């Protein structure tokens, strides 16, 4: 049987990553309202991710659903950064999602649940359940 411990170590980067968390622990996340007319124009393109080809599909996935990603609050602590608005912000400009496993995981979860037909409200619940 696969060691569950090995599985956890294979994904176990959350500990250090969660050290980034700055929000008051235990506080319920307040998700942002998607901005009217928001687009994915600032989401990094594949050419800007040449050093991280493994992330291109993820960024492409977020690019396809800007209005959904804009309604999710990321829990890694980047919400405290100036200029940050939503999970979409994690994939723009300096793009913390290039290095942060929480931004990446929340992005993948959002993309998957949206593809499954879940509403923004349901996606928020799932994001809070895992990363809240």
């Amino acid at each position, binding site marked *: 049987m696969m060691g569950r411990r090995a599985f956890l170590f294979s*994904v176990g980067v959350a500990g250090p990553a969660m050290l980034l968390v700055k929000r008051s622990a235990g506080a319920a996340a307040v998700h942002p309202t998607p901005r009217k007319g928001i687009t994915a124009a600032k989401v990094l393109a594949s050419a800007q991710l040449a050093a991280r080809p493994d992330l291109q599909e993820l960024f492409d996935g977020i690019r396809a659903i800007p209005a959904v990603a804009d309604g999710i609050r990321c829990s890694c602590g980047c919400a405290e950064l100036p200029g940050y608005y939503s999970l979409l912000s994690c994939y723009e400009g300096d793009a913390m999602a290039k290095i942060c496993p929480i931004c990446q*995981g929340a992005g993948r979860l959002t993309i998957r649940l949206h593809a499954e037909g879940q509403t923004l409200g349901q996606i928020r619940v799932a994001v809070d359940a895992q990363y809240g």
Partner: protein
Amino acid sequence: MPFSDHVNRLAGLLLLLQVPFPAAAQIRASELGTMTQLIDGTKLTVTYSRPRTRGRQPLFGSKAAHWGEVWTPGANWATVFEVSKDVTLNGRPVPKGKYSVWMVLRETGDWTTVLDPRWRIFHMNPPDSSVTQIRVSTPVSQAPFVDVLTWSMPELSATGGTLAMQWGTTRATLKVGVSPSLDVTMPEADAQAYVGRYEYREVWPTPGRTGVSAFIVTYDNKSLKARWEPNDDYMQTFALIRVGPDIFTPGLYDKDGTIYEVLRPDMMFTFKRVVGQPTTFSVRGLSDVLEATGTRKP
């Protein structure tokens, strides 16, 4: 004043500004220190100046700290205790906030720890009693010698720990209790729907193994629990803690039956229902990659 005097004064000032004054480069008898501990999202911080014994023995019941004194367990400005969420100290509720810390020293019996919301007080000016203070009976014991007054948390659990102040051979202890961020218990009416036997199938099995095992969900002691057959040495029997609708994360038990680690966000179980009955589940990790699936078996 003649212009030349102005020039001379300015020159003198400029000379002074060039003298290197490293910030706070000053020898103190009691240097400033901090102790910080995070427990399930509650942050405790003790900020205090740390006196040394400097050969003074005994410390308590002497000129350093006499019996009956209302003494701050530190030096200079009063020791400050800050908590980010409500806690209990030796069972007494302490709302989140910032407090100066005082101890009423007694030769026999427990001391009394006094927390005063007026936290910026010099040690020579202990506050009078007031209704805003929180008073906590505090056991004192003998311990191996420590030269520098030290606040620490020598014992920790998922729900709290022991906050200790020690100086010389005297140790005062406060049991800290924090509010749990997750409820490990679950009403039986909700839990019974998940109870049963599942076939657990790993997506990435260890080479040479099938990656298929039995996954048993039970309800015990007001908690939903799970284990594999054959048993997993690391996980053992663990709590399935509900963190969302049909979404669970494992909580690992120590030998005393206390949760010591919760695997959120690294291991998430999401059940799917068919006609209201949880029938399958998926297991995903931090990156939302599918690691395993489960299917209910008769």
